[in-house]
């Protein structure tokens, strides 16, 4: 079946409704008492209806338009109009039914990654069920026997469907709301994308050399900040559906690693880290108490994962004196700028200023502007914003104002001749 316009609209039409209902879900006390709803960065939770005691969700797989950050849009595949698809939130003990409609041009299936369930509900196309053919709607139904951070993704033509962005979070809250209670509960999925410069569809053939590295299919500076009130207990749930492991690092705090693929760990099993490697197909729960206000960087610690597309293996220009040929090069190549002799920061400046236009639909390898200059970041980078007061709720409060005496200061300026 080809994707029709109607199907696409139907898939896209789910999104606003889902957003509204997600808000309602967050406000409404779930079974077992009030608990903090998950904040899916740049995302939302999937609404459900209760039918004879069963929570019924509906996922619609289809082709979508997706924006990584202003300047780069692609044709991706996702659920209910987005990648990642909406987060499924439920409570331990819930009976859930998840309807899956396939509006893709090929068959699919959904695997509930990490969820304990009967084998026939595991969603491995060809192994535990026939594939879901285009146009079909299938129902998965099982009772949640655990709590923890989990995921969902297709288990059919995985190379294509994962590369195209089909994934989502599946979070099961403990029935006892006091277990692991936090004030802010964030979640995002790590992913990699082969969207080659100048193209607008992911390339599923790529195995290692990806162009974009994302938190919830967004790159910095389009990834939402994690806004927290000082003193709040914070959890960050991270799942990895990319092809690389990612050392996720948060500045400013010692992190409790409180859970993993099997759910929440007993207190004795927690580890204290500042960087937690999230392996491929793994989930990690990271918790801390936000007792130090400020703008704290949260990012993958692989430097190339906090960058957008860049050439690999190209001749390194650092330290190369090209002044002898620059003029002739410019004559031969109008618009040519030689940059990089002193590092790439100068290059970032030029691309940020638009002096050096790049390929269409392509983000510069580094960008983002902070209160004190270029951040020179891209990809898997965002900011945890801890504030004493949040007059606008959890809306982005802007940049942190450092109290006097709490910020690094210049103690010497270069002599005139060194400037």
């Amino acid at each position, binding site marked *: 079946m080809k994707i029709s316009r109607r199907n696409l609209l139907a898939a896209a039409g789910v999104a606003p409704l889902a957003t509204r209902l997600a808000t309602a879900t967050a406000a409404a006390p779930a079974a077992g008492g009030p608990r903090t709803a998950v904040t899916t960065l740049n995302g939302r939770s999937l609404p459900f209806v209760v039918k004879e005691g069963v929570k019924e969700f509906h996922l619609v797989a289809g082709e979508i338009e997706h924006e990584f950050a202003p300047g780069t849009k692609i044709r991706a595949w996702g659920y209910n109009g987005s990648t990642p698809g909406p987060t499924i939130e439920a409570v331990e003990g819930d009976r859930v039914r998840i309807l899956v409609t396939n509006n893709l041009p090929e068959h699919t299936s959904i695997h509930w990654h990490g969820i304990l369930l009967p084998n026939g509900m595991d969603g491995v196309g060809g192994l535990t069920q026939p594939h879901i053919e285009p146009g079909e709607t299938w129902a998965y139904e099982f009772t949640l026997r655990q709590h923890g951070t989990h995921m969902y993704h297709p288990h059919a033509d995985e190379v294509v469907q994962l590369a195209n962005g089909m994934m989502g979070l599946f979070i099961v809250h403990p029935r006892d709301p006091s277990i692991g209670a936090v004030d802010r509960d964030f979640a995002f999925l790590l992913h990699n994308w082969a969207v080659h*410069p*100048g193209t607008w569809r992911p390339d599923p053939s790529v195995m290692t050399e990806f162009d974009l590295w994302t938190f919830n299919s967004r790159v910095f500076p389009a990834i939402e900040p994690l806004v927290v009130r000082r003193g709040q207990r914070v959890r960050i749930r991270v799942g990895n559906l990319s092809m690389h492991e990612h050392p996720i690092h948060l500045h400013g705090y010692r992190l409790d690693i409180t859970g993993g693929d099997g759910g929440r760990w007993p207190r004795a099993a927690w580890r204290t880290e500042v960087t937690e490697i999230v392996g491929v197909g793994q989930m990690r729960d990271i918790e801390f108490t936000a007792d130090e206000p400020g703008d704290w960087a949260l990012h993958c610690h692989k430097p190339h994962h906090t960058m957008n*597309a*860049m*050439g690999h293996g*190209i*001749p*390194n*220009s*650092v*330290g*190369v*004196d*090209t002044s*002898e*040929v620059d003029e*002739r*090069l410019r004559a*031969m*190549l109008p*618009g*040519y*700028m*030689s940059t*990089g002799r002193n590092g*790439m920061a100068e*290059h970032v400046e*030029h*691309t940020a200023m638009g002096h*050096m*236009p*790049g*390929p269409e639909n*392509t983000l*510069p*390898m580094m960008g983002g502007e902070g209160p004190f200059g270029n951040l020179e970041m891209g990809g898997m980078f965002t900011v945890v914003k801890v504030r004493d007061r949040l007059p606008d709720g959890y809306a982005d409060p802007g940049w942190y104002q450092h109290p006097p005496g709490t910020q690094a200061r210049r103690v010497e300026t270069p002599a005139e001749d060194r400037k």
Partner: protein
Amino acid sequence: MKPTEIALLGAALLLAGCATPSLPQLHAQTQELRAQRSVVATGASRLATELAQPLDADRAVRVALLNNPAVRATLAQLQAAQGDLYDALRPANPTVDLASLDAAGGVTRVVWSVSQPLLDLLFTSYRRRHGELAMREAQQHVADQLLRLERDVRQAWLQHAAATLRLRVAQRAAEAAELAARLSQSYHAAGNISELQWRAEQSLASEAQLQLAAREAGELNTRTPLLDLLGLKHDQQGLSFDERLILPAAMSPDIAALATQALQQRLDLAAQSAALEIAQRESRHSRRWRWLPGAELRIGSERETGQATLTGPGATLQLPLPNTGAGRIARAAALVEVRAAELAAQQLAVQNRIAQDGALLAIAGRSFDVHARKLLEVNQRMLELTAEQHNFMLIGSFELLAARRRQIDGSDLWIDAIESWWRAFNDLSYESGTALPVPATAAYVSAEDLP
């Protein structure tokens, strides 16, 4: 080309248009052609004027007509033909026999006679027509040689102009390669690329320099044949060439019409037709008068001392035995066959050439319009896109320079396409016996217009 400026070619083309000119017309036309010889001989100042500006194709044709030594030789053929005509219009001079015979006793007999070959007297008009045909054949031959020279000059000029543009292309490619080599040296000096990578760029630069030297030789190799045709020495003062080519324009001449026209107007065909007609007349003539090969009319007198003078006409007849004249007749008939076959072969060749040149022109026009134009556009766009990638550090400077070199090299194919078109155009123009109209909306392309 302004026709008035090319009187020679004008006269040549005029000939092409004439069917059967009268003898006075023939003389007038011959004088006109010969008059150009004096222009050629005293054309030093005109030559200087033409050479004062860069030589484009038209100017090169004018210079060749003024200055090519072969033109003098060609025109001298007309003088020889006029001599032949003079001979043909006059019968053989009469023969006078005079004898004085002494006998013993003081007797003297004086005998004299004037004799004239009989056929010469009978066939004055035959000879006149024969002479006209021979004269016309010579004229057409000369005029055809001039048109052929024009074609040769245009082709030689074209080859040289294209070779010059290719030389300019190679100069740019060599510069791009040299820049890459120097840049790679800086990268290596900074410790960022290996000697191997540096040497690879150097090697490419050396290859580009060798290619440049080959192109320099190519330019020289096309310049000398052109100079020969122009009648100029290699060190001609102040000589410069217009390095631009006119861009081909869409044209689809009616090839069948051109072929028909060629059969009527090609001067070499006309000359061969005249030669055939001469041979036919000679064959008929030799058949008709085979019995009178050596007939002579004579008038004479004989006077002997003391005797009356005897005066009277006489005749000599050659007996047609044992030579009946059959050999002469057979030879003449064979010559007719030879001339007819030569004409047929040339007519066939002309038709085939026109068909071929027409097809070549169409191919060249199409490939220029569709592909060569696009090639430059696309290469330009590719370089822009490559530069964008370079701007975002997706590729390195050497890749960018390599893309630039590819773009430069692409110009060669573009020049090839233009040259092919003009070669076909010039050939078709000559082969069809008519000057095809040069594209009216002529746009020039020079080295500066190439990437």
